[in-house]
């Protein structure tokens, strides 16, 4: 079983990530993947010109590794990968690729869902939206926090 975490200031290629993951997890019956993309509109409703993900080298990687390890502990998955951007991301460019591989599909779906809910609130980034009105540092939305809370309940995710 393996947890892989990659943080990159350069472009993220989800197709290449999936190809690599499929090679690593050969023999598993279920592979789920998710791609998160920078929305073209800011929280203020203006066209986004850029999304900057500030990070603290070392700490940020540890938060990603911790989230991946939790997924592996909570669900019967064989392999998990998180590939995440940092730095300046252009609108409609991929920010995150998540993959989960298991012998059976339910665990892979749950692990991918869990990984994204945790990443949206607990990943060690500070995000800044740039739009025509200026630059704005943003925090997780109430919706993000509700999604995160789902996994604190008994029978989480079911």
């Amino acid at each position: 079983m393996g947890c892989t975490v990659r943080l990159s200031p350069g472009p993220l290629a989800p197709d290449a990530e999936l190809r690599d993951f499929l090679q690593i997890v050969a023999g598993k019956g279920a592979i789920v993947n998710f791609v998160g993309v920078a929305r073209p509109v800011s929280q203020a409703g203006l066209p986004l010109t850029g999304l900057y993900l500030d990070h603290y080298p070392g700490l940020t990687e540890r938060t990603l590794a911790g989230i991946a390890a939790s997924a592996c502990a909570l669900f019967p998955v064989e392999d998990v990968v998180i590939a995440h951007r940092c730095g300046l991301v252009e609108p409609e460019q991929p920010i995150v690729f998540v993959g989960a591989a298991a012998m059976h599909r339910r665990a892979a779906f749950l692990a991918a869902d869990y990984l994204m809910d945790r990443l949206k609130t607990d990943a060690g980034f500070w995000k800044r939206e740039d739009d025509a009105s200026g630059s704005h540092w943003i925090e997780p939305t109430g919706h993000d926090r509700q999604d995160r809370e789902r996994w604190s309940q008994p029978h989480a995710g079911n």
Partner: protein
Amino acid sequence: MAIQSILFFGYLGDLLGRSRDFDVSDDPVTVRDMRRLLASAGDDVAAAVLNPCVRACVDGMIVRDDAPVRRGQEIAFIPPLSGG
């Protein structure tokens, strides 16, 4: 008198600089002492380091205010995480 470099992330980096040197006269024993010493550097710094939502890191680990600090350790202050 000793110089301590402090790292700031997110909006704090915009406000105070990504890395800023401070004169720290006393030897801080805990993160709480460090916050108090840094706060004397100015209102903008005080507002940041005395904000309970702003967490401290020692050597890249998020720590509580009663955590010990020693000279030479990397100290950072971080706003609430935005998530990915």
